[in-house]
């Protein structure tokens, strides 16, 4: 294991300052990606900055704006948070599909999106739910729609000195069913070969996918067919996903298989969430 320093900070201002001024510093929340990345040489850090003392990151609450999930909240707490279970079961499912129980005691939603894997399980539901990422920086705070947060594999909209404080799932909550379907090699603890979120908003549907493009993506062509063109044949609608994605071949699946599975999962998702 590499040698590095362990730093703490009291509040967001201090965190922002340290992240801005220090070179080779990485924020530490759950550490489930960070520690693996340090060991594997992906992060060459001089120091890690433990954010877990910052009160603003521990928030897990619901108010008139929606559900706010602090960047320091472990995934298991999100899965068990009643408003999430009630209003956003799709997010609970996706959080639950990450790693293992013990990993979810440490790993966070913010960590999942900051790691910015194209296969991030929470991303597709967050896309469907129109989540907002609240970011604190050295000078200003800003909110970024989740779809603008992911900029490439491992790349986010975060600038030097910035960190994610909370993720807001804004109201109104979806009125219809939502489902996160994950195809993987083992069906147990595994990365998604393809992850598909299908969320009904009554007559409308929102669909997003993971592991089929450099970032998570919305299935805009499918959505258009269902929401605007009124296609009711889900198989026919699902086929249109080919235009929205650009999967690659890797150890978890081939490009061809991913095209096929994306289509199958979208059709199944539509069948399970949309009334005919």
């Amino acid at each position: 294991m590499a040698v590095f320093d362990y730093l703490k900070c009291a509040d967001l201002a201090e965190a922002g300052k340290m992240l801005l001024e220090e070179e080779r510093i990485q924020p530490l929340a759950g550490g489930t990606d960070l520690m693996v990345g340090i060991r594997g040489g992906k992060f060459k850090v001089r120091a890690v900055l433990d954010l877990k003392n910052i009160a603003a990151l521990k928030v897990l609450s619901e108010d008139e704006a929606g559900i706010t999930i602090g960047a320091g909240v472990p995934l298991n707490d999100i899965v068990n948070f009643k408003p999430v279970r009630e209003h956003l079961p799709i997010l609970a499912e996706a959080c639950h599909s990450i790693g293992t129980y013990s990993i979810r005691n440490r790993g966070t939603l913010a960590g999942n999106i900051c790691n910015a894997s194209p296969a991030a399980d929470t991303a597709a539901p967050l896309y469907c739910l129109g989540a907002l990422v609240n970011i604190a920086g050295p000078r200003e705070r800003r909110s970024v729609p989740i779809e603008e947060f992911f900029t490439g594999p491992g790349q986010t909209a975060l600038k030097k000195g910035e960190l994610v404080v909370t993720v807001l799932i804004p109201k109104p909550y979806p009125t219809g069913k939502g489902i996160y379907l994950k195809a993987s090699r083992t069906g147990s603890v595994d990365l998604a070969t393809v992850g598909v979120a299908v969320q009904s908003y009554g007559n409308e549907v929102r669909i997003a996918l993971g592991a089929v493009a450099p970032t998570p993506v919305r299935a805009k062509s499918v959505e258009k067919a269902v929401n605007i063109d009124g296609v009711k044949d889900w198989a026919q609608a699902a086929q249109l996903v080919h235009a929205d994605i650009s999967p690659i071949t890797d150890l978890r699946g081939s490009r061809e298989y991913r095209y096929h599975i994306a289509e199958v999962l979208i059709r199944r998702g539509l069948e399970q969430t949309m009334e005919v």
Partner: protein
Amino acid sequence: MAESVTITFTVNGEKESRIVSPSRTLLKFIREELNLTGTKEGCEVGECGACIVLLNGRPVNSCIVLAAELDGKELITIEGLAQNGELDRVQQAFIDHAAFQCGYCTPGMIMSARALLERSPSPSDEEINEALSGNLCRCGAYQEIRQAIKSCAKK
């Protein structure tokens, strides 16, 4: 750069204060500095579960936690389960059901099982699967492990 971090914590019921290297993992700290070698290393990246311990009552993979993060927390390792020479009922159930072979995954497995029974005294199969899917057992004693945990369920 700080050479060391001072941490105060409870381990298996005993209060301790130690000076640790900032980049030391909790796993290495437990094994090499607390000399509690029951907690095992199997992958160093949180994928096998052999290093699972309870941190403030929750199972975590100690290989991807820093020792520095232990400050102010309560740690329970496999060595902390037996009380006054009596095995914990999960430990006894693992013996009764022969729920292990090589025993290398067993400490982590038992810690996960123990935490499960704390939060769900009569776990369903699904809850057992959820709680233990992060504990790999290459000898494949899963069937016996499931039975052992079920035998601990409060009727």
